[in-house]
């Protein structure tokens, strides 16, 4: 009652606040400003994230595309019989005795005659001129001669790689200022390069050897390729696929369809979710201690790498397989059981085929993750190793030392010559092409075959 009598008394003091709804008061303005500020923070955060992505991708593309092009010089080389086969009997063993150094004068001479033919003026001696070419040129010539001894005495046209500095000069990485203290190239040699380029003898072209070739030593960045380590990665992925898919699917079927509610099941489940979060380097330590130190499996072998990556990918595959098994409606199981199938038959004949697209998607994503993983491979010795020869045969592919794509990229990033950095970025482009392809396949599979019940 008192409330009622008092309310009129207090009412006159309260002036109607703000007045019109169409006119914002200070507080509302402040609140609306806070609202739009908040929204801007959100947009800013997303923009920063996307900007980082764009910076990263443009950086990879701009820094890496150079690796797919290489500078070449076209030369006609006289394969002088007097140098390569003094006795003239084409005995292959005697031809092999001429070392790569023996081929250097031939190349220098070819370059000199080319320079003369084009009428280029230079003070360089032939030997100095020859230094604009890669050290790999001699080996290339020698391999050619050993493969075709009947060509000795003829003049054969070759396309040789140039030195990495010359290559860098054409790509803008090396400039006349930056080579002042550089012993491997001089300004006169660059003058020669300029003239050869104007004459069209020296040019940049697509370099398939980067994609399919083998790694090269520290001295010859221009000859290094990622092909052999790509094979190493391929063999590792075979191991991962052959082990992780069956084991992962079997484990998921057990956990999702058969596991009783007991202590053991709990322990398995906790273990799987924990393994998914264990740092990858710990798997590397496991591989080193168990596979290499205890079982004496060969160091640096793709088999060991594959085993380690299998253990690492298993939780990913199990988690996604369980999700796709769970997505199959119980009515399918009930119907199968209702017509007399055993539980095992219901799962293997009906649930598993229906879950297959999801399992496949999860497996591809797990493989993509394994393909890009580097840290465990460092510990089992897939780095610090020059993958210079492709494995001979399938067994050797699994057991002989090799590198893997990410390990090869890491290896290049550690080398002193900046020409290797371009290779590392180029390697990343190839790696990312693989990953994007695999993920695209996974997305397409999911779109095409995923059924909504």
């Amino acid at each position: 009652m008192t409330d009622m009598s008092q309310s009129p008394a207090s009412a006159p003091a309260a002036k109607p606040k703000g007045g019109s709804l169409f006119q914002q008061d200070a507080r509302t303005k402040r609140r609306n400003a806070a609202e739009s500020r908040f929204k801007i923070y959100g947009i800013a955060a997303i923009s920063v994230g996307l900007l980082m992505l764009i910076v990263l991708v443009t950086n990879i593309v701009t820094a890496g595309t150079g690796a797919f092009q290489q500078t070449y010089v076209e030369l006609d080389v006289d394969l002088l019989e007097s140098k390569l086969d003094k006795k003239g009997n084409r005995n292959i063993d005697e031809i092999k005795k001429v070392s790569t150094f023996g081929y250097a004068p031939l190349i220098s001479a070819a370059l000199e005659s080319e320079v003369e033919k084009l009428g280029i003026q230079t003070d360089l001696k032939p030997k100095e001129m020859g230094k604009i070419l890669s050290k790999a040129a001699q080996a290339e010539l020698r391999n050619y001669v050993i493969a075709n001894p009947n060509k000795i005495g003829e003049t054969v046209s070759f396309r040789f790689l140039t030195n990495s500095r010359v290559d860098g000069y054409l790509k803008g990485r090396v400039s006349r200022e930056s080579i002042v203290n550089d012993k491997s190239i001089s300004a006169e040699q660059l003058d020669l390069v300029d003239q050869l380029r104007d004459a069209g003898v020296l040019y940049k072209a697509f370099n398939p050897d980067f994609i399919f070739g083998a790694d090269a030593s520290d001295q010859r960045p221009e000859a290094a390729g990622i092909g052999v380590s790509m094979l190493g990665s391929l063999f590792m992925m075979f191991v991962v696929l052959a082990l992780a898919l069956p084991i992962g699917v079997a484990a998921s079927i057990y956990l999702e369809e058969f596991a009783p509610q007991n202590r053991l099941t709990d322990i398995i489940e906790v273990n799987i979710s924990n393994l998914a979060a264990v740092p990858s380097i710990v798997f590397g330590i496991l591989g080193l201690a168990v596979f290499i130190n205890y079982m004496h499996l060969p160091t640096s072998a793709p088999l060991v790498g594959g085993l380690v990556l299998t253990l690492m990918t298993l939780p990913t595959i199990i988690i996604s397989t369980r999700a796709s098994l769970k997505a199959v409606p119980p009515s399918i199981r009930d119907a199968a059981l209702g017509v007399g199938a055993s539980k095992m038959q219901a799962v293997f004949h009906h649930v598993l085929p229906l879950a297959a697209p999801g399992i496949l998607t999860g497996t591809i994503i797990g493989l993509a993750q394994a393909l890009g993983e580097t840290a465990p491979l460092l510990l089992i010795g897939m780095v610090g190793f020059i993958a210079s020869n492709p494995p001979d045969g399938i067994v050797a592919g699994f057991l002989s030392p090799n590198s893997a794509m990410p390990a090869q990229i890491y290896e290049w990033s550690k080398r002193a010559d900046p020409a290797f950095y371009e290779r590392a970025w180029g390697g990343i482009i190839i790696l990312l092409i693989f990953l994007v392809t695999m993920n695209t396949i996974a997305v397409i599979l999911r779109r095409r075959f995923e059924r909504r019940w």
Partner: protein
Amino acid sequence: MALSWLLLILLALAVIGFFAGRSRALASAAGEARDLHSLPSYYGYNVALTALVPALGVLIIWLLVQPMIVNSTVSGLIPDQAIPEGSDRGLVMSEVRRVAYGLDGAVASGAMAEAQARDGNADIETLTKTLKESGQVLTQDITQPILVAAQKYRSMTSTGKVAMQVVVLAIALFGAAFAYGRTHMDFRARNVVEQGVLALLLLAASIAILTTVGIVLSMLFETMNFFQLHSWKDFFLGTTWAPNFRGGSELSILPLLWGTLYISLIALLVAVPIGLFAAIYLSEYASGAARSIAKPLLEILAGIPTIVYGLFALLTVGPALVSLFGDGGALGVGWMASSNAVLTAGLVMGIMLIPFVSSLSDDIINAVPQSMRDGSLGLGATHSETVRNVILPAALPGIVGAILLAASRAIGETMIVVMAAGAIAKFSGNPFEAMTTITTRIVSQLTGDTDFASPETLVAFALGLTLFVITLGLNILALYIVRKYREQYE
């Protein structure tokens, strides 16, 4: 006989067993499949599985156990005097193995007769010469005890191999015969096969446990070896990290832990605000179209391999930071000497973690019931007030869980810090200096020539175990918090 042949024989046996069992079952029912207890193929599977599975199991166990027995027997043969000063039994054993492999290789290439390789009184000099000529790798001079041990190693290994083949084949044949004998129209083949398959499924699921046990045991043993060589007090409580391969190293985890935590902190300072605001905007403000574009694009950042981030830090972000903060840089402050720095690694790791924070927070914010939003908006709160005062407090435990998961990821991250953080272990608060982390040291102590008897190598296992425990602890804590939160609304 190589292992692959043994496996092929087992496989062939299983295939033969399958058809034999199937036809025997059909024969026992006089060709009338409907009289059988199970479908005919189950009888076949029964024979095949009974032949294959126990034999394969024994094979795997044998392969694991035999090296252990051979090693312990052979290492008992080496007298203490034969172990040189400054070396230990493990090193001598690896030499023994090398000699044994060398002998194997020499015999295989025909450079040496089997009898010569087995001759215990062989002249060591001629033996060494023959081995070297046939291209075998020997690092030390062979001594008499090493030769004896190597010959014992060879003979035990080859006897073991023959015994293994005999035993495995016998088990397979016995299994096949047993199952074949039991095959009869009334035999409950399907039930038996299904029991067997179930056991295999359970085995596959248990590999997760085996892996964890393998991780823990492999690190625990070596860590215990390490603590026998190096005091645990210095490891956990010391303040200097100065490995020295000539001995007398100071190996303490604290400076490494500081570097790890400092870099992770910077990474989280980058990732948490960006990730959280991105998640809030995407789940509360963004239109469906914007969300369906921005969310997958952000998640690409999580799918990029860490080697890419490492290279990005090493070759792009580091030099860019130096050109800003370095000597003669754009800001003219001269704080940063080299591109390897805590800031470089932290920033790049932060970029990598943005999608972790944003996706997890996005899920959690979406799980907050719509009724709470409606209630708050209905009372006149603006959208941002609703987010700050209602949604975030409700989602807080989940967000904390997401941040902890991101932190555990940051602590265990390897490639970025290996490539961009540097190698100097010290306590310093300066983000422009190079520092080192636990993972970096694990990599540097375990790559190259490793000697499993020196504390400088073994310390990597102690570091790995510590890392494992820290990340495991953070994950369990995060899952606990998230689970606790879920209970509130369901």
